[in-house]
């Protein structure tokens, strides 16, 4: 569905994104941050592209919380800038890709309200980079009850919430059905909107389909590890994967246990670069070892496709992914240092 006229300013947008990529932190910078304490990390970030947010929130937060809030808000600001300097069909694709942040924001607001977080805390964790404006999100946060918030969300046609989901949230405090619905709708809509008419769009669509594969595999691994029966797994599977269609996933859900799925993963292209992760999983049996490897594999895919068509939507999507990875890495280092995690553990969590 095309909302904007014109193809888009690919050359301009890609040039801007290329310039911004030069400001991304390098591996050496992460190594330097690993030997700093939390205050030094804060001072260091105050001298980088995060200086504005570090100053803005420095009065309200400190330590790892300041770092987390500052980099999250910087991410939102970056995405808004990227959306602002794109036009036409390019802007439509970027906008649709960023709708995942609407899902994230709605879940954060609902979870924040259920967990009695303060309005300020919830607002500072939002990433207003999707279709919902920051003003609308702040209005939702300011609403006193879950009933009012869900009434407002029910009016958003893109979310397609049902009365049953609203009842679950308001009367029973059950967020799970709504959250899973939102996550599924995100991928349904993305795959629907990105038309594979040209090679860049087809590559982007394939990338989204790989993302669906990774999401489905993570869900399967988690649920199989808990020995959840097959009929209860099916409702969480998302159709449209690149390597794993719904039928293949249902077969994996029916048969065997986690080891069957891991054996299947070894044959998958997603695990080409993840052999060490597989060996580590066999040693420690931590599901997160495998799922981190799947996420890294997906990010590796985005690095590859960014070079195929340098004047397309792909480098822009790649930049947005790398920016998110940078923000995640900074948060991992800051929170990890604050909690006393060892350097070895922190390094294993970083994506570089």
């Amino acid at each position, binding site marked *: 569905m095309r909302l904007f006229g014109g193809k888009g300013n690919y050359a301009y947008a890609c040039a801007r994104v290329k310039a911004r990529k030069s400001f991304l932190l390098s591996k050496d910078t992460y190594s330097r941050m690993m030997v700093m304490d939390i205050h030094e990390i804060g001072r260091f970030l105050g001298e980088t592209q995060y200086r504005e947010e570090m100053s803005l929130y420095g009065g309200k937060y400190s330590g790892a919380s300041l770092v987390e809030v500052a980099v999250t808000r910087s991410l939102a600001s970056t995405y808004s800038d990227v959306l602002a300097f794109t036009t036409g069909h390019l802007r439509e694709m970027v906008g649709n890709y960023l709708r995942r942040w609407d899902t994230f924001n709605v879940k954060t607001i609902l979870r924040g309200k259920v967990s009695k977080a303060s309005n300020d805390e919830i607002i500072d964790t939002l990433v207003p980079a999707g279709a919902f404006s920051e003003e609308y999100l702040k209005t939702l946060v300011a609403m006193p009850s879950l009933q009012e918030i869900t009434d407002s969300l029910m009016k958003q046609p893109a979310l397609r919430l049902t009365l049953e989901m609203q009842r679950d949230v308001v009367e029973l405090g059950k967020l*799970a059905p709504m959250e899973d619905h939102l996550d599924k709708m995100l991928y349904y809509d993305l795959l629907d909107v990105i038309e594979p008419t040209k090679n860049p769009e087809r590559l982007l669509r394939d990338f989204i389909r790989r993302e669906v594969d990774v999401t489905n595999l993570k869900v399967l691994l988690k649920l199989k590890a*808990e020995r959840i029966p097959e009929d209860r797994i099916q409702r969480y599977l998302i159709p449209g994967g690149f390597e794993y269609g719904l039928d293949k996933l249902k077969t994996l859900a029916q048969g065997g246990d986690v080891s069957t799925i891991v054996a299947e993963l070894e044959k998958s292209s997603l695990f080409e670069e993840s052999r060490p992760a597989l060996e580590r999983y066999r040693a420690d049996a931590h599901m997160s070892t495998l799922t981190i490897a799947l996420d890294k594999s997906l990010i590796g895919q985005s690095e590859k496709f960014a070079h195929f068509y340098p004047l397309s939507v792909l480098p822009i999507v790649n930049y947005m992914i790398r920016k998110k990875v940078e923000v995640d890495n900074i948060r991992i280092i800051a929170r990890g240092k604050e909690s006393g995690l060892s350097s070895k553990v922190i390094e294993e969590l970083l994506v570089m």
Partner: protein
Amino acid sequence: MAVREIQPTRSELLETTRKIRLTKNGHKILKLKRDGLILEFFNILDQAKNLRQEIAGLYKTAKETIAIASAVDGVIAVRSAAYALTVHPEIQLRSRNLMGVVVPEITSSRIVAPLDERGYGIIGTSPRIDEAADAYEKLVETVVKAAELETTMKKLLEEIERTKRRVNALEFKVLPELEEIERFIRFRLEELERDNIFRLKRIKNKTAAKTEA
């Protein structure tokens, strides 16, 4: 009971002898109870020590997993996942009798919730949060077991102390006093007997002297 307050009569002696016999029986039984309680205590002590070590290990793991989840997914995501839980643990408390000591029997349910019943969405929640939840569930289950064992240990210790004090009181105060009373009565009775014999001899001698005169 002061020895001087006792009437040195035969009935009193019989009563005192009966009390001594009773006290010695009670002392023997209490010593057996004390020894039995101590054995039971050491049994539970080993289990409690192992459980404490297990808790220390589980706590360390749980802290690490939640630190990782907070680092990777953010603090609000972790906190809100915790509050999204719709299944709450239940504790059932009963009591049982262990060598005369009333100790608790604690059972728990719904501490471990299946992944798809925890209340947060499955698709969008990271496995790090799941692992943190798993770790804390194991920790809470073990803490409940430890609560039963350690409360039982505390109650046994109190009862052992009480029983020890009673054993010592019987052994070092009550029995010696009773034996002292018994000795006193016997001594007095013997003295009275000697007095009687002497008096009777004198009367006999006087009577014999009168008759001769």
